[in-house]
């Protein structure tokens, strides 16, 4: 009886402790995100108020209206004049349009995923299925290439893009990002292909198909889940890519991607945190949405039992 009681106490203590640790971790991870989320609804100029507001007392969509270009930045200033107290000096400027960088990012990331999947899946098929000379060596090169930090290749990439006359275009981000993503994507897909049964391939050969046809008609359809997960990696990777994007866009607003646009927003308007927060929320929200849609596909692919061996 006594033992049970102390057991109960111990488990309660344990439960509390576990709960606290979990909460701490959640807070650490999600706290900043929440703060950004809350800030995006604050009226301009109230983000520095002390004591800090955990939820804006007067939530507003003004920040979203400004970055989406519904409201001119100057107009907001006028409406907020009283609250500003001269802390923020904003020159009258044309309408912002955050949808442009979002569109650019979508084009870049989609093209990068598609391109990386196409090239990497061919490479992965060769690695996992075909026999050729220097196979191990080429794998090593691929592996080392994947280990190189992006910052090392930024300068040469920039020079390359310049000589190709691609600076200030989306292609200057698409092509290098495809290359950056190939090592990881290839490895992911090679592992996936390797677990598909050999006999399917032999069967297709006997049925009269050549390797490239087998890749298209048997291997790829059976690898939808693998392709989607590798595709998501490439998509997210290029969505968040900043260094190259900021270098090759060279400040031209029409070709900026989301990360670059957010930074420019910060510089140009002297850290208007409500606007920056709204932009981040839009970007993250879009990612979450895309991940959810993809995830549905991935799970569909898995439960469709396309590979049941």
């Amino acid at each position, binding site marked *: 009886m006594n033992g049970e009681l102390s057991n109960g106490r111990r488990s309660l203590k344990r439960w509390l402790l576990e709960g606290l640790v979990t909460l701490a971790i959640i807070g650490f991870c999600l706290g900043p995100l929440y703060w950004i989320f809350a800030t995006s609804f604050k009226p301009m100029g109230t983000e520095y108020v002390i004591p800090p507001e955990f939820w804006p007392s007067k939530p507003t969509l003004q920040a979203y209206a400004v970055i989406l270009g519904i409201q001119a930045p100057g107009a907001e200033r006028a409406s907020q004049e009283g609250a500003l107290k001269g802390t923020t000096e904003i020159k009258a400027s044309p309408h912002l349009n955050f949808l442009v960088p979002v569109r650019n990012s979508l084009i870049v990331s989609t093209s990068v995923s598609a391109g990386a999947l196409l090239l990497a899946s061919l490479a992965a098929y060769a690695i996992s299925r075909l026999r050729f000379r220097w196979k191990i060596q080429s794998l090593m090169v691929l592996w080392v290439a994947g280990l190189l930090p992006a910052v090392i290749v930024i300068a040469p990439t920039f020079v390359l893009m310049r000589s190709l006359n691609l600076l200030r275009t989306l292609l200057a981000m698409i092509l290098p990002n495809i290359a950056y993503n190939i090592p990881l994507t290839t490895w992911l897909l090679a592992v996936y292909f390797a677990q598909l049964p050999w006999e399917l391939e032999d069967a297709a050969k*006997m049925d009269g198909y*050549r390797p490239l046809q087998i890749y298209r008609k048997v291997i790829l359809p059976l690898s939808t889940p693998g392709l989607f997960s590798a595709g998501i990696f490439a998509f997210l990777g290029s969505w968040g890519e900043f260094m190259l994007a900021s270098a090759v866009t060279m400040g031209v607003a029409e070709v900026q991607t989301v990360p670059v646009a957010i930074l420019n927003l910060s510089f140009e308007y002297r850290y208007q945190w409500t606007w920056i927060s709204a932009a981040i929320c839009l970007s993250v929200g879009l990612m979450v949405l895309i991940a959810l849609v993809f995830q549905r596909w991935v799970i569909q692919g898995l439960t469709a039992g396309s590979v049941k061996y």
Partner: protein
Amino acid sequence: MSEVYVEEVCKQYRDVQALDSITCTFEDGQLTVLVGPSGCGKTTLLRTIAGLIEPSSGAIYIGKRRVDGIPPWERNIAMVFQSYALYPHMTVFKNIAFPLEATRTPKDEIKRRVVETARILQIENLLDRKPRELSGGQMQRVALGRAIVRKPEVFLMDEPLSNLDAKLRVVMRAELKHLQTQLGVTTIYVTHDQAEAMTLADKLIVMNAGRIQQVGRPEELYRNPRNVFVAGFIGSPPMNFIEVQYDPTERALIGPDFQYPLGPRWLDLLRNRPAGTLILGIRPESIQVIASPSPGMVPASVYVMEQLGREILLDVKIGPQTLRAFVPADTRLQMGQEVWLQFQEEALYLFDPETEVSLSWQERQ
């Protein structure tokens, strides 16, 4: 439809000789079974004919055409795999149609031939299903359908029945035999199951350790095995082997606990042979078990009795050695009881202990 001819084919894997100079013919329209224990090279030979493995040396002909060096997709061979290897993302219809699509057959013709094939195999009602919705037997039929729909020159079958349960296997075995006879396509069938091999084969090729041991009709191999390996492999339960001494002065074989007087046929065959060790082989079904002694019989004691219903499979001991024999189901015997065995002389086999070749094989040919 064509004859397949394999000439001096070798396959070397690092330090393993998987195929050691294989030469054999697979006759046009016949079902030839490659049989042997696992690792004997039978599947390697099949896959070499398929083109999935390139031989280290030698030549392979289908009809008049030399095919080694030609990729599998150009050989016009269909293959049925042990795991069926159905495409999981395609319906049964698409699976069967797949080989036809490779040759750009017109759509309506594909449809006609798939439906016809499905009708032959009685799977018309399954055409819209995916492979995962099928039972083992149904998958087997789809795999067969995919092979026959194209009307290839040769069928290759790699243990196609081994994933089915025992009952279904016997049913499918009969259907397969019927289908093959009906279609008359040259078929090469690989199995490790000698019973399956015996029942299906027009011709048997027994393989061991990368070499062909013997080629012939099933009953030929059963009646006249060339060596100890074939004798022990074909027939169930396998042939009994006893090491004996040949004594020319006594005109008899001396066993661990018995003396077996030889008849004139054997004495004639052994006339040039010095005294020495031989391996005596006798099939369980050729041993008569008798409860009372008479001259020329071999004394033994009952070790185990296995009632099979139609008969009893008896394990008897001669000295340290165990022999198996059949007795009628109503025989009353006890464990340890002394019995006498009569070996029918015409059912006796003698093998050279060195080469393991049958002494009477040449003569019986």
